[in-house]
């Protein structure tokens, strides 16, 4: 940890509009150095727009961006310390993976060729085939390899797994943990496959309709909600006062997910009422929170199709 007090990236009140569409609506975030962040949200929530701005590749309509404490648009050195792998990363038309890696090695000061070579072997990537002839999965592998071997202080992956099969994704996650342990850096992973990456994340940011819904330590989120199941009347009596994230009912049986931590007294009380308490996995918690927020705030001038 270099400067534990100084965030790697800090943004304040970011707004971004494309004509009449609001992509980001007042986003304030601070990403601490040397952590793995998960940026989660539905399609069109504003993830990619936010990541472009976080990496100094896009401009906000208004708001402030500081990367390592400086304005990325006025500081040449900043961009070489950041690696952003887009979901549909473009490479020069006739490049082969070998040439793309050579170019990346010139750009990123901490490039590690040995790591790149190891990953090429792991993914069985054909080095001399032209990139435009690669399969979707192989193309994703090129992005993953550049992102990891860049060892950039800030590395951002936007859905890096498209076309990668389960084995290749596991290789990616395993190598990421290994390499991060040896070379800590700030990593942002945006993904729909929350349960696959949940254990790797130290911090979770959930964005919805251009706003931050959740910005919390992954381990404090786990256990921050509980599902209460049992007789409907008993359940309703028990959950009074808690924020309800989700309700399921089956005849006289109800299962309600509430936000909150229950103490030992409440647990014993639930047991005496014959109620079952079950923990809520991170993936479900994110889905429930997003859905609850959507139910609470009506859709405004935001278009779902926005990418």
């Amino acid at each position, binding site marked *: 940890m270099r400067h534990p007090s100084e965030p790697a990236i800090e943004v304040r009140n970011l707004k971004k509009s494309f004509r009449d569409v609001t992509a980001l609506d007042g986003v304030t975030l601070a990403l601490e150095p040397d952590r793995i962040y998960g940026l989660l949200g539905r399609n069109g929530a504003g993830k990619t727009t936010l990541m472009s701005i976080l990496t100094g590749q896009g401009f906000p309509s208004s708001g402030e961006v500081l990367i390592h404490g400086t304005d990325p648009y006025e500081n040449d050195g900043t961009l070489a310390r950041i690696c952003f792998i887009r979901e549909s990363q473009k490479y020069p038309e006739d490049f082969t993976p070998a040439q793309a890696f050579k170019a990346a090695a010139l750009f990123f000061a901490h490039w590690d060729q040995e790591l790149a070579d190891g990953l090429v072997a792991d993914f069985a990537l054909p080095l001399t085939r032209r990139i435009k002839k690669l399969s979707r999965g192989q193309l994703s592998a090129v992005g993953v390899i550049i992102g990891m071997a860049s060892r950039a202080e800030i590395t951002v992956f936007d859905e890096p797994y498209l076309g990668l099969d389960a084995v290749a994704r596991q290789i990616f996650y395993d190598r990421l*943990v290994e390499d991060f*342990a040896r070379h*800590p850096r700030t990593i942002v992973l945006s993904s729909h496959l929350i*349960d696959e990456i949940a*254990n*790797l*994340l130290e911090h979770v940011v959930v964005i919805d309709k251009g706003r931050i819904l959740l910005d919390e330590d*992954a381990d404090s989120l786990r256990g921050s909600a509980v599902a209460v199941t049992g007789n409907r009347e008993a359940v309703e009596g028990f959950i009074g006062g808690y924020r309800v994230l989700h309700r399921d009912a089956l005849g006289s049986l109800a299962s309600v997910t509430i936000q909150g931590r229950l103490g030992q007294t409440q647990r014993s009380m639930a047991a005496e009422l014959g109620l079952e308490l079950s*923990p809520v996995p991170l993936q479900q918690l994110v889905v429930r929170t997003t859905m609850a927020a959507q139910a609470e705030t009506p859709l405004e001038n935001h278009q779902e199709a926005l990418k």
Partner: protein
Amino acid sequence: MSAIDDSRPIFIQIAELVESEIVAGTMAEETQVPSTNEFAAYYRINPATAAKGVNLLVERGILYKKRGIGMFVSSGAREKLLQIRRSAFQVQYIQPLAREARKLGIDGDQLSDMVRQSLAAAAAEGSVIQ
């Protein structure tokens, strides 16, 4: 034995896994435990989370740090953990058992017979704790 579930804080699960190894005797007192990076790679979790779990055990005096070498199991750690687990036994196992028995109409005598039988069976399997 990758037993991490996603619905409880992972650092607590890491601490519990290490505690169970110590109770079972597979991690003996005064021996070195795996490094946080080894835990991270093995359980595929964030290294910072693994470190948090290990530090929790250091705070509780179950593990201690040898500078420049790594983490070790403290002397007396097993006995300490056994005491903690014994005192949690009633709440964690007996109370739910009693509630379920009541629900099913199993009375005290029947229940103690069943417990006695199960204890005998466990002894036959060769239990770890004498």
